[in-house]
């Protein structure tokens, strides 16, 4: 059976992307931005606090860290829960000790279950970012639009009510979106999303509710990629994050302020044998000087003001 003739039709083969969400743009041909006090690097730390329910259904997209042993999978359930009980406290302390800002992405179910985490985030002046309801509510095509709208609303409304913050950022569980996710989160007042890992700087996304922005979430140096998937040792994690940081720091001299995003999950980075690696990179970056620690919202606002 030959392929249908449509296999040789290329409806989007023309200048630009093969969709209408954003325009193509060469990173090195953009207007350089200047961060406060001329800092070469904005440091955007994104601790991600996720609730993995014991009864999460084994179907659809499996989120990284998702429970995959037969029910009741106490092994994985408690390892993830460890992150929210112990690991998060370690990460928060490491940030507090260095006076660093953060954007905390959180499952709204977790905010309801462990109110202490939100209180701590507020006490430390961390931004709260919507991260879905929990890790079994993975946004993908095939979910009815009304259902997904309810999920988005529930996540934003719960986090806003419990934190007292506006909550303007969104990070989809497992970086997974449906065709509608961007429209739905924008309709709920979202200003930026963390799911598109194709850039080192913010860029504009089009939605049915007006433009929002993609923030560069640096998946390649996330603890998820380096520790969980690549199985790097802590020393290798430090090398990678610092090589990333140093290159962007140098690039800033010719291309304008850059962003280093550190995406941390407490069930990965908050364990005793890894937390020192996180502290080490924070120390090394601060020692370098010229690092502006800021929330996603602050970085985006500074960037937007210069476009």
């Amino acid at each position, binding site marked *: *059976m*030959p*392929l*249908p003739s*449509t*296999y*040789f039709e*290329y409806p*989007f*083969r*023309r*200048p*630009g*992307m*093969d*969709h209408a969400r954003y325009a*193509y*743009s*060469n*990173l*090195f041909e953009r207007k350089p931005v200047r961060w406060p006090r001329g800092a070469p690097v904005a440091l955007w730390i994104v601790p991600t606090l996720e609730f993995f329910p014991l009864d999460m259904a084994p179907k*659809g*997209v499996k989120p990284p860290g998702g429970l995959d042993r037969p029910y009741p999978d106490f092994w994985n359930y408690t390892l993830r829960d460890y992150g929210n009980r112990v690991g998060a406290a370690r990460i928060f302390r490491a940030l507090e000790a260095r006076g660093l800002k953060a954007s905390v992405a959180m499952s709204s179910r977790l905010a309801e279950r462990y109110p202490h985490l939100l209180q701590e985030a507020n006490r430390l002046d961390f931004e709260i970012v919507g991260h879905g309801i929990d890790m079994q509510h993975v946004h*993908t*095509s*095939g979910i009815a639009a009304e259902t997904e709208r309810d999920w988005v609303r529930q996540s934003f409304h719960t986090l806003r009510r419990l934190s007292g913050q506006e909550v303007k950022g969104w990070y*989809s569980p*497992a*970086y*997974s*979106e*449906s*065709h509608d996710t961007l429209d739905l989160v924008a309709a709920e007042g979202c200003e930026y999303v963390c*799911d*598109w*890992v*194709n*850039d*080192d700087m913010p860029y504009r996304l089009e939605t049915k509710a007006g433009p929002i922005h993609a923030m560069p979430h640096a*998946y*390649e*140096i996330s603890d998820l990629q380096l520790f969980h*998937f*690549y*199985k*790097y040792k802590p020393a*290798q994690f430090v*090398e*990678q*994050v610092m*090589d*990333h940081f*140093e*290159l*962007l720091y140098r*690039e800033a001299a010719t291309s304008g302020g850059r962003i280093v995003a550190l995406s941390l999950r407490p069930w990965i980075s908050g364990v005793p044998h890894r937390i020192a690696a996180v502290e080490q990179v924070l120390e090394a970056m601060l020692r370098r000087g010229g690092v502006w620690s800021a929330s996603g919202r602050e970085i985006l606002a500074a960037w937007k003001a210069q476009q």
Partner: protein
Amino acid sequence: MPVEDPGLYDYLPYYDRPKIEWPNGARLAFWCAPNIEHYELDPPPNPSRTPWPRPVPDVLHYASRDYGNRAGIWRMMAAMDRYGVRGSISLNVAVCDHFPDVARACSERGWEFFSHGVYNTRYTYNMSEEQERAFIEDVKASIFKWSGQQLSGWLAPALTLTERTMDLLAEAGVTYTLDLFHDDQPLPVNVRKGRLISVPYSLEINDFTTLFQGNCTPRDYTDTIKAQFDRLYMEGAEGGRVMCLPLHPFLVGQPHRMKQFEEALDYITSHDGVWLATGREIATHYLTHCYDAFVAAIAAHKKA
């Protein structure tokens, strides 16, 4: 019909072959093959392969590849410029239509354009002979349009082929294929009509298999490249060898990998006796000076 052996090449003992002499007595022809690709957000289905691990839109995997054309390629290109290494691009030709700046930057540098199909999400699997022939012609025309070059080399899109691919490539005037990984030297490929050779590409030191699939740290990546180079360079004293460094801007162009990539280029280019070539230059030299001797050696080995 599935067969036990594709019959595309014949056995030839690795040592005691006709001696390949590269220009200026070089021991090693080194060439760099950046894969300049685009993966469609919502490609049509092919019965043999699902394009994305997740349901469309697979935002995570789409975006990770899109990084290459927005950011990675420009860093990779600047590093190659610094070391005087030209690229031979394994091109999804639709990239020229989508991102003409990328195509122009490659063309301005005098880089070779060779085929990697139309998109990396349109597979050759299940094409009829007629469809595959038309597909090759589309690619050929696009490459000529965007570079003024005649198509010489072919790495099948996403390394997907049919049993007929090699015959059709030779028929279309392609001189070298990169889909065969059976040797460290170019060799004749058995085709219905015309001449086709295999030129060594690499899945062993490819950034895709090392950095991406192999969980190799960038430091290990550099060590792997150096070790590959050292051995081929040593063997090159007995007859020219080929070393290809395949690249993907979305991988090697990441900030945390640039230093290690540059170190590898620095190591290779600081040796004497290395011919910094393109795929086409290697193929042309081999076809002109070595092909006949290799055909004769293969025939003699068969008889013996």
